[in-house]
């Protein structure tokens, strides 16, 4: 049987081996307090809690996890704390769900704890369906034990002996590593029956999700585990009261669980001092789009967008002008450049109409059309709507159709009002958060980039020059009449005598841009307008 003494022994044996291995690779700094961080500027400006072991320990070796203090928090909780004390600590830490809504984790656990039932469940939501998001995948692949440890502690706290990890089938490596981690944890005795000799039993099973985005919604996920069609349930009861098979159930996000052991390792006060008062701790972001250094960024809550996008992300690519950043995934909002100093925490993002979501962050530059971006995100939601409720199923489709008309130059007088009204109805009346937040990309772009909508609808112009149907290629007086453009044009719609000004027949032009490419750089007589 494994005991704390044995954990200590493993740590003592394994730690030097780990340090030796890391020194050989040479990608880390080992600090005096024993913490190990990845070196390089990109990481120096971050504070990694959920990602702290990523790319540092070998995820397939439970001993390396123990060498960085893994499972000591669990041992401490099981032997020295009552479930109630654990819940109090989590409440006191201020930990909020990292899966999107920011619901206080301690409060959720307390609800499940308060219902006296012989069967309760813990679920880790590892569905991560946001396009471009890979924070949870990264944790699962690189540090699976931190999620297991968080779940086991939670199970002990609420009185559950069974856990499920609902993971996307598209994450085969994460699945494989979780399987290995579960096996090793069971073998060692930190999972399964009589954990660490305390008499507490907890088992974890994997469930593979078929990849529908909506299955990440808590109640749809439960339906899916129950073997039904993954459609959100109407909330008559909280899942912490009646969830999986009508039993008290805790669903937390992968990153939320990964925070739990650290809170007990380093203490509630240490944790509370990171981040802001109402949003303590850190958050992992997937920084993508037109940014120089794309990747995973973990910073304290309250860090400004500017620090994330410019100081860590290195700003936009190719010196293009920064235009906006979209936070919160497909149902998040577009934040304009003049709000770049907004601190990133649940409250501040909410104030400016966006959301934290699961941590997607897409950087956009001057070449991005905001109407087209709204269309792009709506296209995603329309595909992913489960079809259960009317406003989302029908409404998002009509919203998308309107945006499609705008980018095709077919917007009409009154359309903006119709778009606003329908956005409002879909938000007000949809059943689950997918529908309730589906219009956020529209609402925020209308709020911050109304001019672009007007340009598309009334002037039939795309200011960013991104909407093919609305741009016009035009040859200015700078033309030297070399004929390069006419030769390049695939539909022969450019005419002009040698050494004379050439003209594009707009009716026949297919807007491929070949002429612009062909015009000698010194002349640059072809413009897009």
């Amino acid at each position, binding site marked *: 049987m494994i005991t704390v003494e044995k954990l200590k022994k493993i740590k003592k044996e394994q730690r030097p081996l780990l340090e030796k291995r890391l020194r050989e690779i040479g990608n880390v700094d080992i600090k005096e307090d024993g913490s190990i961080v990845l070196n390089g500027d990109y990481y120096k400006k971050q504070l990694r809690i959920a990602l702290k072991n990523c790319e540092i320990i070998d995820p397939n070796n439970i001993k390396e996890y123990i060498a960085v203090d893994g499972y000591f928090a669990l041992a401490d909780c099981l032997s020295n704390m009552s479930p109630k004390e654990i819940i109090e600590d989590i409440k006191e830490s201020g930990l909020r769900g990292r899966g999107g809504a920011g619901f206080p984790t301690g409060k959720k656990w307390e609800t499940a704890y308060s219902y006296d039932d012989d069967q309760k469940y813990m679920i880790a939501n590892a569905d991560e369906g946001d396009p471009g998001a890979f924070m949870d995948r990264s944790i699962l692949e690189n540090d699976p034990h931190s999620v297991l440890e968080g779940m086991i502690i939670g199970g002990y706290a609420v009185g559950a002996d069974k856990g499920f990890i609902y993971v996307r089938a598209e994450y085969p490596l994460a699945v494989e590593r979780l399987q290995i981690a579960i096996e090793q944890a069971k073998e060692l005795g930190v999972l399964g029956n009589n954990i660490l000799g305390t008499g507490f039993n907890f088992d974890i099973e994997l469930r593979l999700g078929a990849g529908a985005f909506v299955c990440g919604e808590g109640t749809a996920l439960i339906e899916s585990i129950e073997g039904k069609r993954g459609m959100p349930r109407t909330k008559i009861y909280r899942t912490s009261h009646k969830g999986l098979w009508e039993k008290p159930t805790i669903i937390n996000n992968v990153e939320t669980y990964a925070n739990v052991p650290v809170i007990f390792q380093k203490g509630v006060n240490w944790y509370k001092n990171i981040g802001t008062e109402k949003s303590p701790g850190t958050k992992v972001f997937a920084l993508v789009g037109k940014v120089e250094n794309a990747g995973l960024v973990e910073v304290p809550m309250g860090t400004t967008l500017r620090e994330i996008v410019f100081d860590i992300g290195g700003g936009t690519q190719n010196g293009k002008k920064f235009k906006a950043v979209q936070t919160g995934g497909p149902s998040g909002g577009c934040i304009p450049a003049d709000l770049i100093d907004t601190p990133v925490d649940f409250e501040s993002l909410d104030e400016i109409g966006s959301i934290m979501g699961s941590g997607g962050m897409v950087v956009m530059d001057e070449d991005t059309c905001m109407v087209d971006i709204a269309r792009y995100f709506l296209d995603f939601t329309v595909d992913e709507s489960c*079809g*259960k*409720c*009317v*406003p989302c*199923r029908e409404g998002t489709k009509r919203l998308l159709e309107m945006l499609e008309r705008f980018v095709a130059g077919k917007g009409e007088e009154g359309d903006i009002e119709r778009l606003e009204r329908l956005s409002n109805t879909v938000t007000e009346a*949809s059943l689950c958060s997918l529908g309730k937040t589906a219009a956020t990309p529209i609402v925020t772009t209308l709020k911050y980039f109304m001019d672009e909508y007007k340009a598309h609808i009334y002037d039939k112009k795309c200011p960013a020059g991104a909407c093919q149907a609305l741009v016009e290629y035009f040859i200015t007086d700078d033309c030297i009449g070399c004929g390069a453009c006419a030769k390049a044009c695939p539909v022969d719609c450019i005419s002009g005598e040698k050494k004379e000004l050439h003209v594009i027949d707009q009716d026949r032009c297919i807007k491929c841009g070949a002429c612009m490419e062909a015009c000698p750089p010194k002349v640059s007589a072809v413009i897009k307008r």
Partner: protein
Amino acid sequence: MSDVKLTIDGQKVTVANGTSILEAAKQIGIKIPALCYDPNLEVVAACRLCIVEIEGSNKLQTSCSTRVKEGMVVHTESEKVVETRKDVLQLLLDSHPNDCLTCQKAGDCFLQKYAYEYDLKFREHDGAMRPELLDTSSPYILKDDAKCILCGKCVRTCAQVSERQVLTFAERGYDTYIACDANQTLETSSCVSCNRCVTVCPVGALVDKRQLSKLRSWEGSSRVVNCKRCDYGCEFEIVSKDNKNISVVAKPPTNGRPLCLKGRLNTELEYLNQPEAPYRKIDGRFEETTWSKALSLDGILEKIEKMDSIKGSTGEE
């Protein structure tokens, strides 16, 4: 169970704890529009028409799934509710074929009723419409997917009889539709033509084919009878016009009643002046059949005759 007092549209009402707002409103004669709600089925809150405003909450709530609370003040027709409800209804109309003139359901259709009540019309547009899928394979049920509003009542009622569970949702989002088993027709699927789904469909997506073109819902008269075939005693409506009984329509199954084809045919034979030929499904094919076969009376009838004639010849009373 303790009672809860609340106010709905200015009227005070006392109901049992655990009652939904929709049911509480019904008790004082306030009918909140709803398309997916049915007291006999699981609550799904999918159509969103039954939204109401609750004082102290800035979000609209569906009254079918929200339970009453002491002191609650509910508005079922506030401006915000009505505006949102109209938009949701309009969304349904925008995908619905403009076919009320010849639709069998006209007069009984809830979409039509609510459109009338809220003064909404079909609008022309060049956006998507539901694909025109018409399943004519069954002699008993006509399934017109273009008219389906995806309330899911048929799926839920079908699933209440464990060995049935024929109807399911297929695809998702705007492409969602109701499928029979794994994309079969009514004929090739395991559908037993009990017509439970027909009785709950709020629109003309599932209709009784034996009623088609016989009469409009507002013509004729009807009375309810109980089936004599088995102890459940399911209810059927005998519809008559010009002093002739012209069709038998299944009533929604309640109190755990299963509803079945045999019972309906039995009732047709018993009450109708000119019953149409019955059909039986054999190996996924409908075949016209005889009444004695349809009602599984083969052999029994002859025996009854024989027994009766023996009795007659011996002169016993």
